[in-house]
């Protein structure tokens, strides 16, 4: 049922295209720089400091989550491009299972997102966040997990998208709300009840909280108070992992129905 070489070549294709894409590296940097150094600098002027960390430091886990969110959704939406340009048929008529196709797409999406997340970790010293190598490794592992979760969500959406026409709808009704309801730019526990509830239903909230757990723990030596992590790391990981499993299963089921 699982064809290793097919998965390998589907993944390879995406990575070749990622590398070949002009300006993909600039693109990786552009959005985080805007958020961290423009939006972050602006907002930190009006935000009362909630503890021992600066607003920009607080934003870093959220920006990492954002990079992963956008890159995962975009890379899985490439399935819709493949459909539009016919290449999807070449894959669908090959003697490989739909499961292998989904795994290939999930691996390539996860790899490209988590690599982009790793690239922006070079901003950590600029923000005055000091991390040990072990923390960096932990951060990367969590980035891989969140990338996988959101890529799976993207594949599920792409399997149901016949054309690019609804892309804007998805951006406005799914991607942007996921981002703004995630605690990326303000702590969830400061939000009014209704919105706080929505935030707690958002898988990205837990992904970003996991990053906060590694970078800005709430309690203990050098605890970060209101701007620190909100949930235990174990809960964060559990929610994101469960979400991934559900999404990838639904994505495989949807792919099996594509004719």
């Amino acid at each position, binding site marked *: 049922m699982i064809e290793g070489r097919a998965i390998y*070549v589907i993944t390879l294709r995406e990575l070749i295209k990622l590398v070949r894409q002009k300006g993909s590296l600039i693109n990786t940097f552009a959005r985080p720089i805007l958020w961290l150094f423009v939006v972050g600098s602006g907002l930190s002027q009006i935000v009362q400091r909630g503890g021992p960390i600066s607003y920009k430091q607080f934003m870093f886990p959220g920006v990492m989550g954002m990079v992963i969110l956008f890159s995962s959704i975009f890379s899985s939406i490439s399935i819709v491009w*493949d459909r539009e*340009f*016919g290449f999807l048929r070449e894959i669908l*008529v*090959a*003697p*490989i299972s739909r499961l292998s196709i989904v795994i290939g797409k999930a691996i390539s999406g996860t790899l490209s997102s988590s690599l982009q997340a790793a690239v922006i970790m070079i901003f950590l010293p600029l923000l005055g966040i000091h991390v040990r190598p072990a923390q960096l490794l932990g951060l990367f592992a969590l980035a891989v997990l969140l990338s996988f979760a959101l890529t799976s969500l993207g594949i599920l959406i792409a399997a149901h998208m016949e054309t690019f026409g609804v892309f804007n709808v998805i951006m406005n009704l799914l991607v942007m709300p996921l981002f703004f309801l995630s605690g990326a730019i303000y702590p969830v526990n400061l939000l009014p009840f209704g919105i706080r509830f929505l935030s707690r239903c958002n898988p990205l909230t837990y992904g970003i909280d996991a990053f906060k757990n590694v970078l800005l723990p709430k309690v203990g030596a050098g605890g970060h108070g209101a701007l620190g992590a909100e949930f235990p790391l174990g809960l964060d990981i559990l929610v994101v992992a469960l979400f991934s499993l559900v999404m990838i299963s639904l994505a495989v089921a949807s792919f099996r129905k594509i004719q």
Partner: protein
Amino acid sequence: MAAIEVHSLIKNFGPLRAVDGISFSVKEGEIFGLLGPNGAGKSTTINILCTLLQPTMGKVLVNGYDCVREPESVRSSIGLIFQDPTLDNELTAWENLKFHCYLYNMERRVMKERIGEMLDLVGLADRSRELVKHFSGGMKRRLEIARGLLHRPRILFLDEPTLGLDPQTRDKIWGFIRNLRSQEQITMFMTTHYMEEAEVCDQIAVIDQGKIVARGTPEHLKRMVKGDKILLRGGDPDSLRRRIRAHFGLEVQGDHEDLLLEVERAEEFIPRLLERLGAEISFVSVMKPSLNDVFLRLVGREIREEEANSKDTKRQMARAYHKARWRRH
């Protein structure tokens, strides 16, 4: 064993019946053509044979494998050239072919050699490192044919292989397909709505509104339209007209000098005609029926006059239907 066997195949898209109980078989090594106007059910049929669509009812065997129960065995034994391009424009020709080899789990050892061989065959060996987006329509088609053959399929499916190509490129592609046939032992199943192209087929089935309305060799089908037309001119048209009627019992049409006859086989009739009336005849011309005439007779309209839209409409209907089905799930 027949290469393809289809028994009472039915395919519905919601309330629309796209294929309505067709049966046929294709012998190994044959070129089989499925002809019909746009929206007749050709693409639906080919998609079912390639396991891209599930039949509503009926039995379909390809290379002896059941299309519903053993789709992956079917897929690894066939090659496909689709109507619409299915190459990755952002990859090179070589990369597109390599991708295919991996999908079909070809041995790494033979891969390189086979890719080179196929690129030579379609005359693209010197362009293999170029991105496909810089290729012309004809080059892309050739590359797709090369790709379809890479894994040595026993049947090659060609869905409107020359649609949208200019006449010169079309000729080239056909020349290429004829060559291929003499070089490799391969069965070909094609759909087309260019009648001239269907002449290369050994067997043809004409499909209209989901049903097969005629089948046989191109010769056999052409005989269905009562045979050949003969145009005659001679010294005295009126007396010629009378004498042909008297001697051969044939209805003579046409006006003034141009006399028009319809006979079963012109090559047998003309010697007899000339023997009797040779002295009075100054001009003879024979028009063999084309598959276009056959089509006109069978379907009641010219195959190419159908607007391209009808197929698009049908596709949209199928798409809308699939969407609706997804929502229900």
